[in-house]
């Protein structure tokens, strides 16, 4: 392993290059935040397994590489990105290549007037009031070294603004494409989605890779769900199997807002996700669902935090894991119910299926309840495919592979069925079918 100090110095050194690449932008309003984050980054240490929050996830493999921030825009053709598109979702597509917003490949055709879908870089350079009002307000970088790294190097990403009472019927499909061969790029898309009062939108964050190279995606997304607004969020993580992915999402929920998220994770050699949602007012609904499939030596880690800071809010969380080979998974779901958050309903569940002897999952629900009139529950299960069910299926003529595939599908089905966007639902089904080799006729 390289000296960790040296790794950090490399990042600090590349900041100078980064600043040069900013041109005039360096005088923008957020440069102060960048500088502050850089100094935090310099102060903070990389987490080790001695940190409670990183107990089961060693980032040592990540620190073996010198990743270089991706400063240059890369161009891809329509043909190169075609395979990542969903057939029925081609009307609102946003393309981000190596962390840079691609104006030429982005197409927003079916959205009402007034909707803003643009590059964060552009919004910063135009001193957009949205940036001033929301940027960095939810994803606190003071304690999280990767968030400070993202914030310090903030350059580009996606800004979505849905003005008051606007309804966007067609989902917005954002493709974060990495095209990196041997450059060991550090890719840091930084996103801000703001749905104002009474608005409604569905946003799909889709992380894909053109090559199977080693790179590091460190992404931060901040989402503001305004009063009575409805945001349906989906994230599909299909990074290169050699890549590292550290993703953070912070959701600010206003009065009677409704946020739901589905996270489907397949790729990367190491994935760490921190999803934090906070109810800032009464009547909110938050749903965090997820499905992760790991194989070989993959490590998947999700830490979620739902902060019931106000009364009369409901949260539902359901994560399912399917772990094969020598892969590992970590689920840590924390729910805080603050003293005045009476009448809170908070339900959390994590179910896992282990398909091999070597796979491992660490699951930890954490309920911290400081109010007395609440309904909260949590549960976690770890198991194998049901032997009786396998025999039953085989006794009807299904082969071993087909029987396993059917049971794996069945295990994942409730989370898949809760995905509202049909194209995504079908896509997940396809992935499962491809992975677990079902009989021809059910494909």
């Amino acid at each position, binding site marked *: 392993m390289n000296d960790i100090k040296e790794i950090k110095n490399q990042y600090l050194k590349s900041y100078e290059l980064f600043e040069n690449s900013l041109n005039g932008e360096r005088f923008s309003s957020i440069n102060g935040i960048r500088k502050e984050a850089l100094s935090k980054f310099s102060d903070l240490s990389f987490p080790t397994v001695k940190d409670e929050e990183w107990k089961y996830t060693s980032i040592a493999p990540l620190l073996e590489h010198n990743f270089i921030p991706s400063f240059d825009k890369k161009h891809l053709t329509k043909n190169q990105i075609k395979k990542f598109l969903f057939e029925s979702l081609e009307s609102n597509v946003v393309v981000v290549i190596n962390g840079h917003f691609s104006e030429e490949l982005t197409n927003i055709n079916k959205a009402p007037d007034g909707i803003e879908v643009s590059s964060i870089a552009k919004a910063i350079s135009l001193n957009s009031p949205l940036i001033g009002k929301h940027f960095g307000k939810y994803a606190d970088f003071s304690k999280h070294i990767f968030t400070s790294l993202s914030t310090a190097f903030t350059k580009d990403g996606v800004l979505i603004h849905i003005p008051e009472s606007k309804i966007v019927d067609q989902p917005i499909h954002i493709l974060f494409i990495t095209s990196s061969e041997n450059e060991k790029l550090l890719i840091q898309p930084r996103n801000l989605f703001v749905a104002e009062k009474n608005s409604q939108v569905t946003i799909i964050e889709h992380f894909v890779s053109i090559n199977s190279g080693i790179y590091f995606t460190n992404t931060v997304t901040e989402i503001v769900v305004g009063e009575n607004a409805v945001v349906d969020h989906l994230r599909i993580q299909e990074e290169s199997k050699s890549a590292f992915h550290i993703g953070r999402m912070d959701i600010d929920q206003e009065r009677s807002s409704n946020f739901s998220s589905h996270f489907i994770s397949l790729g990367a050699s190491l994935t760490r996700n921190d999803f934090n949602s906070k109810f800032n007012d009464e009547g909110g609904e938050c749903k965090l669902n997820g499905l992760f499939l790991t194989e070989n030596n993959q490590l998947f880690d999700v830490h979620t935090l739902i902060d019931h800071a106000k009364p009369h809010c409901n949260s539902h969380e359901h994560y399912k894991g399917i772990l094969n080979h020598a892969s590992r998974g970590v689920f840590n779901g924390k729910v805080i119910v603050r003293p005045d958050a009476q009448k809170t309903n908070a339900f959390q569940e994590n179910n896992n299926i282990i398909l091999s002897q070597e796979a491992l999952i660490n699951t930890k629900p954490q309920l911290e309840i400081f109010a007395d009139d609440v309904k909260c529950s949590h549960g976690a299960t770890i198991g194998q495919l049901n032997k009786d*069910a396998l025999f039953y299926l085989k006794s*009807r*003529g*299904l082969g071993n592979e087909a029987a396993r595939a059917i*049971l794996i599908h*069945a295990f*994942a*089905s*409730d989370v898949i069925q809760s995905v509202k966007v049909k194209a995504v639902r079908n896509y997940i089904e396809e992935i499962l079918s491809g992975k677990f080799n079902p009989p021809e006729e*059910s494909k």
Partner: protein
Amino acid sequence: MLEIKNLHASIDGKKILKGINLKINTGEVHAIMGPNGSGKSTLAQILAGREDYEITKGEIIYEGKNLLEMSPEDRAREGIFLAFQYPVEIPGVSNTNLLKTALNEIRKYRGLEEVDAMEFLSLIKEKTKLVELDQQLLSRSVNEGFSGGEKKRNEIFQMAVLEPKLAILDETDSGLDIDALKIVAKGVNTIKSKDNAVVVVTHYQRLLNYIIPDFVHVLYQGQIVKSGGKELAFELEEKGYDWVKEEKNELVTN
């Protein structure tokens, strides 16, 4: 069709079957009766290929092939069907999906074309009528939330769709009311032909009023202690299993 020769089997070191001999020809209906714990279900499960049992001695020849060397799925594809004593609930898998996959896997194995959606639908419709199964149950998960009677009828329904050569009913009659029992019997009698065989494993004589067996075997302590025609079932009903137990014990003491 099926010949079981001196079959010994145990589970977790406990001997369950201690030398079963049984020959079944096509066109025959055999009833296997016996008190609880005599090894009836074990025999049924071993025929279907359950791997929990250890075969310590003996062999099973099915249509000239060594059955014990075949996987459970290949046995099903070769025409063996077990109606489970306790049908398994499989949340998330619809009955239709299971049946269509099963039917096509079996057809593929036999070199037949897969059935298309229309053919399958009309087949399903016909067979649900046979066992008076509510068609709405088909879109639901396999056996999930089914009543006891629905589960048993679902087994017979699957049997009717898959048309096995050797159907084994493991206590399908247990816990059924008389109407459900008649439906089960009707299902079996409809698929019965000179080209297939049925083995009815049961604790009670009642089902045999509706499915008339050619042979009745009494299983006790892992062995067939008595075989006879259908009148043996009536005799058992009258005298109870103690009668057989006594005979067997006499046999041992002599």
